[in-house]
């Protein structure tokens, strides 16, 4: 059995490891087009902050890790897939055959349709190569404009701010991280950053970028213009599917898959940012583009690629944790609530603490939190086990901060003689 994996990010690497764990005899070839050992994009902000060196971003630390597991790594770019011949063609012209194929090619940044996005000095922050360019231009005191205050933008913001740059953030929507945090908490993150010297322009669009002497002139929708040494584009990403155009593999936003992460072509699977997988909360198939989902997909796909190991994927919980200059925010599942659901929120605005819980009956289905980090994982536990809260539902409606007590009580059946119950 020859397993071929395209893409050596977290999804591809975890799939390769899992394939090896499940079957000691198969051939495993992992093809990735970046020039470094497999690394984690998530670690890039910490590289920019100087917390780690480049090796600190590597997904696996031992130089011989893959060799020891007989996982062959090829640094090449796949240009096409031929499902008839069960093979992939590489940019070098070489051809590699597969019995089972996993597509884990991740996503790439997109650029807004404005003048000047291709100028030198305008960068995405997506790869180690990008990180090197950004580090070279973001010394203390340099002027940086960050386009996009989404999740990725905000993570980079943290790193840039700690480099001591003079930072302006421009966001199209009315708050920060609009697809992760609600109005109140997204607004609080904004004022938190402003108080720490970052200029945050929401409801604002970058209209164009032009060179001016050795700098860049960024024009904004309000007519204002700002000078910058560096412009970072964090306006969005798109799954890397263009090389699949003539393959017969069906693509919507990401690659279409079933509950086993099988694509529409036989013996071909997809995982991670490139895959439109099932969402735990909605049951819909969407691209989540987060690290935990890439890992989970990698595991599920590898099982289903192995004979006799079928695993049904019930869906990944969409969840994020973000640290913006010391303010930690989290988002889980159906944080915007569901039809017919109930919610409760509590806040201490002066201290930037906030919690919003969303329920379906007595089951927790989503949450947004600010400034709360202790035992935060139980939110995932409660949502994903669909544990019924019973009397604790009302107690949480009175005081949502009792979340951990609710969890321990329901899990251990401590209070009121209730035994833990689950529904699925």
């Amino acid at each position, binding site marked *: 059995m020859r397993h071929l994996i395209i893409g050596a990010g977290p999804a591809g690497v975890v799939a390769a490891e899992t394939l090896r764990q499940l079957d000691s005899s198969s051939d495993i070839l992992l093809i990735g087009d970046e020039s470094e050992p497999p690394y984690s994009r998530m670690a890039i902000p910490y590289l920019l902050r100087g917390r780690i060196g480049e090796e600190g971003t*590597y997904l696996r630390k031992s130089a011989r890790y893959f060799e020891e597991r007989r996982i062959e790594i090829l640094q090449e770019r796949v240009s096409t897939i031929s499902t008839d011949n069960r093979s992939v063609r590489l940019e070098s012209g070489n051809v590699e055959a597969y019995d089972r194929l996993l597509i884990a090619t991740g996503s790439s940044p997109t650029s807004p349709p404005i003048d000047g996005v291709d100028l030198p000095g305008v960068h995405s922050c997506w790869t180690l190569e990008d990180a090197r360019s950004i580090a070279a231009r973001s010394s203390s005191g340099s002027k940086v404009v960050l386009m996009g205050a989404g999740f990725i933008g905000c993570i980079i913001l943290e790193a840039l701010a700690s480099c001591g740059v003079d930072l302006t953030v421009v966001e199209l929507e009315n708050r920060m991280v609009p697809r992760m945090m609600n109005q109140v908490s997204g607004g609080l993150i904004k004022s938190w950053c402003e108080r720490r010297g970052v200029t945050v322009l929401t409801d604002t669009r970058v209209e164009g970028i032009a060179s001016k002497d050795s700098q860049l002139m960024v024009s904004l929708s309000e007519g204002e213009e700002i000078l910058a040494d560096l412009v970072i584009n964090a306006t969005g990403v798109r799954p890397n599917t263009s090389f699949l155009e003539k393959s017969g593999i069906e693509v919507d936003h990401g690659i279409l898959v079933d509950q086993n992460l099988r694509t529409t072509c036989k013996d071909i699977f997809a995982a991670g940012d490139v895959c439109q997988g099932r969402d735990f909360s909605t049951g819909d198939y969407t691209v989540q583009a987060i690290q935990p989902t890439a890992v989970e997909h990698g595991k599920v796909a590898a099982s289903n690629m192995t004979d006799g190991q079928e695993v049904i994927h019930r869906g990944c919980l969409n969840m994020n944790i973000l640290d913006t200059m010391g303010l930690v925010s989290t988002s889980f599942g159906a944080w915007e609530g569901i039809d017919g659901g109930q919610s409760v929120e509590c806040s201490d605005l002066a201290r930037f603490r906030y919690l919003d819980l969303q329920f379906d009956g007595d089951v927790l289905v989503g949450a947004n939190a600010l400034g709360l*980090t202790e035992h935060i994982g139980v*939110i995932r536990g409660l949502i994903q086990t669909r544990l019924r809260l019973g009397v604790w539902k009302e107690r949480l409606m009175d005081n949502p901060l009792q979340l951990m007590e609710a969890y321990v009580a329901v899990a251990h059946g401590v209070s009121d003689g209730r035994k833990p119950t689950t529904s699925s």
Partner: protein
Amino acid sequence: MEKSLHIDADKCTGCLQCELACSFENDGVFNPSKSRIKVFEFEHGRHTVPYTCTQCAEAWCMQACPVDAIVLNLATGAKDVLSDRCVGCKVCTIACPFGTINYDKDSGKVVKCDLCGGNPACAAACPTEAITFIDSDSTGYDRMRQWAGQTGTIVSV
């Protein structure tokens, strides 16, 4: 035989010796807020429940870590955080469905129970044997481990 922490909440009196011992062992201070084991109070202290990591087989924290900073300690069976590798991204803290790996602001890293390398200070400090360190087979953690399974979208990997 691998050993695990066994927690019998019925025997817990809420004296918090475990929290003090844990923080002293790991941080050199008697400070319950630093403790990796927490005692939760119910009905104004009528029930108290010590709670910490079960070193679950699924190891959600370890799987989620993007930089291989959480590793299985083969000697103890614990999942240990390697502080020098941890970048403080906190993704493990939302991935752990038990809420037992936490971000420590002071160090900028995450912390969790590592069984004190095989000699847990909490168990040694517990005066009522509510916390004991015994052969894994006989711990009451099976139920929680089952839960870990339920949280999984992955059934049998």
